[in-house]
């Protein structure tokens, strides 16, 4: 008999929120028309889209016309970086970013550099915290068009000093882009940014909906071919049923966020403490205090990350890993690399609203034996 599945990879995709499911089904019947047309079905679709935008903007504390829905969080991140750079090309061609940005941001940076621009990575410390003095110096250099900082690391959970980084950017007159994918729907969004992105399937919305917010007065220019939809910030007709579901689930997730954080943070503390105590030769990484409420990462010495993921999967546990053997590029996670922490045998556990204490206990009860077994098989016990 196969074990009961325990899904612990919310940072990749949270299970669909029940409110999202309801809204999605209703909007499939009611919101299939193109909201840009001039007949009653289109007007109904337009009402749904406007309501979704108003609700989402209200949750984020921004104006509705500052918010665009994109076809994914990745597209939103690409648009934020490339559009922020394009809008300030007269000032300069340098992007400043933390070394631990999401790969979507780094890939956009690579595109910018391939086109003749420059990108400056700012280091983090062993806990994954931004080096603020290096950041301050980097954003003050001449020719900086945009700075990008992730609100909290999607790989190790360390919350970044966004307010202080934003103050440096304000002093230097450089707009700040904040990737808030792991924060929106879970914690208050920090202030001081000019451009912000998020992704619906991280908070329990459907996949295929991203948020791109550009504050009024920000010099941002669409990097895509012209299109009048979504204030000209992202081309193509939106997946309206998914957008409606994303908006409804964000409102529900944000309403429960404080209570959920209060429930999940102690479970993460328990994982951090018990894994460190009960699995020999393990490195629990990320800031133990200033961290996301739902995410924890650790690395097991001498264990192959891919083998560990498969072993956990056989026992019903779904987790992800930053180890090189689990990536298509066979490179270790650039986040673990930037922090200088062990990258093999890496496991990221991320909790969500359906995660129970019993599931966490089962994971903690089974993990030490699974790691011990793999080490015994590899003949590395006692090394």
């Amino acid at each position, binding site marked *: 008999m196969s074990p009961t599945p325990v899904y612990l990879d919310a940072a990749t995709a949270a299970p669909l929120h029940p409110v999202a499911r309801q809204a999605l089904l209703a909007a499939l019947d009611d919101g299939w028309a193109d909201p840009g047309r001039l007949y009653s079905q289109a007007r109904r679709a337009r009402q749904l889209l406007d309501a979704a935008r108003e609700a989402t903007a209200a949750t984020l504390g921004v104006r509705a016309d500052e918010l665009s829905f994109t076809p994914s969080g990745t597209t939103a991140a690409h648009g934020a970086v490339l559009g922020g750079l394009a809008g300030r090309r007269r000032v300069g061609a340098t992007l400043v970013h933390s070394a631990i940005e999401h790969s979507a941001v780094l890939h956009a940076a690579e595109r910018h550099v391939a086109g003749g621009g420059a990108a400056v990575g700012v280091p983090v410390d062993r806990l994954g915290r931004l080096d603020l003095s290096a950041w301050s110096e980097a954003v003050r250099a001449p020719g900086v068009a945009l700075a990008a900082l992730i609100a909290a690391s999607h790989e190790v959970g360390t919350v970044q000093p966004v307010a202080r980084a934003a103050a440096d950017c304000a002093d230097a007159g450089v707009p700040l882009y904040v990737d808030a994918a792991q924060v929106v729907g879970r914690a208050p969004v920090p202030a001081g940014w000019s451009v912000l992105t998020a992704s619906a399937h991280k908070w329990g919305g459907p996949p295929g909906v991203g948020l791109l917010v550009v504050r009024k007065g920000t010099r941002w220019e669409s990097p895509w071919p012209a299109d009048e939809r979504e204030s000209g910030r992202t081309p193509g007709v939106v997946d309206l049923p998914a957008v409606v579901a994303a908006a409804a689930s964000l409102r529900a997730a944000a309403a429960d966020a404080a209570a959920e954080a209060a429930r999940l943070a102690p479970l993460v503390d328990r994982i951090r403490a018990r894994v460190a105590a009960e699995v020999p*030769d393990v*490195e629990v990484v990320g800031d133990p205090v200033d961290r996301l409420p739902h995410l924890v990462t650790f*690395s097991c*010495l*001498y*264990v*192959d990350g891919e083998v560990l993921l498969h072993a956990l999967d056989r026992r019903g546990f779904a987790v992800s890993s930053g*180890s*090189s*053997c689990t990536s298509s590029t*066979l*490179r*270790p996670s650039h986040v*673990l*690399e930037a922090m*200088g*922490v*062990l*990258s*093999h*045998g890496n496991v990221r556990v991320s909790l969500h609203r359906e995660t129970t204490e019993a599931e966490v206990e089962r994971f903690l009860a089974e993990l030490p034996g699974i790691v011990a077994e793999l080490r015994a098989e*590899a003949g*590395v016990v006692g*090394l």
Partner: protein
Amino acid sequence: MTEPTEVLDCRGQRCPLPVIALARRLPELPVGAVLRVLADDPAAAVDIPAWCRMRGQHFVAAVPDTPAYDVRRTH
């Protein structure tokens, strides 16, 4: 650059194998000896220094222009 006492060829091996080979061999060398690990898996650049930190051994340096890392046995 210090001349290594011994060279351990782990080229072509994927992590964690180079770290395991290092962990097996270093304690067999005398205290003060330098073991050079040749490892072309990009994870070795992160994991060999991390292993040294966890085990209290001394990571001397990555050898410039080669996929090689020097580790000194300190205890």
